[in-house]
């Protein structure tokens, strides 16, 4: 059972799909439900010892898990093949931007102008208000509406892929109409990346 669970988790992890406890019980553990905790514990130990991965619960209410990489970050082309390196690069840039803007940025193309305390001065003094993600990415010639030569549909990559993989989290900003959203670090980013890596 343990080795089956290890396989199951590795396959799900290849695609960065978060794993539900219910799926583990149904597909792998099945009739050994009583031993669930023990089986999971042993599988986690093997994942750490042999693969350098760790099973982490990111949602304790709905019992959802991900595998995070325990190995210290390394430089070098070997770790990512082809497009993945650039995609991870983009992700890292977005994570740093969010971090430096006080952990949250708006999913929009325009920064709100802070109400001017000194109406005579027309330039805005950062960093009081969350900057806008897409405004920042424009500087890198990455536009949400345009197909990018490397990243393709960037809007989809950032708002869907990165969110699905739990690198980013998007939440509605209260009291906005029409509802606006903000981006923060997702649980996978929290666990895998230290703030230090990002600077």
């Amino acid at each position, binding site marked *: 059972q343990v080795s089956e669970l290890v396989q199951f988790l590795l396959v799900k992890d290849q695609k960065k799909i978060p794993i539900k406890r219910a799926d583990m019980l149904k597909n792998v553990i099945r009739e050994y439900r009583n031993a669930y905790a023990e089986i999971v514990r042993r599988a986690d130990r093997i994942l750490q010892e042999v693969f*350098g991965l760790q099973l982490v619960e990111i949602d304790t209410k709905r019992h959802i898990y991900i595998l995070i990489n325990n*190995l*210290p970050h390394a430089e070098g082309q070997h770790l990512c093949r082809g497009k993945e390196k650039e995609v991870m690069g983009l992700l890292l840039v977005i994570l740093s931007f969010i971090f430096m803007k006080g952990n949250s940025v708006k999913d929009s193309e325009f920064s709100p102008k802070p109400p001017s305390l000194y109406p005579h001065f027309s330039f805005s003094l950062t960093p009081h208000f969350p900057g806008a993600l897409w405004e920042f990415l424009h500087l890198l010639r990455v536009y949400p509406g345009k197909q990018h030569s490397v990243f393709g549909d960037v809007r989809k990559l950032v708002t869907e892929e990165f969110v699905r993989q739990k690198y980013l989290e998007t939440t509605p900003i209260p009291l906005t109409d029409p509802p606006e959203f903000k981006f923060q670090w997702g649980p996978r980013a929290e666990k895998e990346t230290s703030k230090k890596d990002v600077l």
Partner: protein
Amino acid sequence: NNLMAAQMTNAHRRFLQVLMSNGITERSEARKLHQHCCETDKVYYAHDKLDDFISIINSHLQPLFMQIRKGISEDDGRAHYAVVNLAETEVTKMASDYTEIELELFRKTMDLIILSENGFASSTDILNLADQLKTKKMKKKEAEQVLKVFVEDKWLSEKNGEYTLHTRCIIEMEQYILSNYQDVARKCNICHSLAIQSQVCESCGIGMHLRCVRKYFRGQAEPRCPKCNEFWSYDTP
């Protein structure tokens, strides 16, 4: 044996992670990766000890029915490594990446390739199959797309409009193929591993890899079958 008790280090784990995410890794790349991992994780590095390094990983993978396995490409004769699941009773690795109907197309394509004389199936033949799938009919355009994905993911490789199994597929599915195509799949008479593209003796039916044929007949004026001694009628590759 000292090796069996050897601990895994982060270098081994890192190497394994990359091998798994690559799908298939060519030997010179694997050598570079070995060096990179040892340097990154500050583990003792011996440049000619890649096989020992891999053995340590394999000793830990064994209880999980997994293995880092080496295979020789039928195209360029180069050695490649892949992480294989030994407990597979069917194409389980692919099962999570493709739909039922795509898997059926792949299985039927594999049938064509293995049953063929030369290890290739023409795209016309495969597209005709798409029409006859049990799960659901697949349009030719769709089948073309799926074939493209199989090639990108390194399950098939394509040459001049014909398809054969990629080295990755052969390494990962050798066991599955040998057991499921027992009577049809050929084992090379020289090196005894699965041969997809092969030359077959017209008299006695034994097969050999193209690279094994080349090696075996090198320097021989009159190539003859190693088993039945009949004149070997193919051109030496």
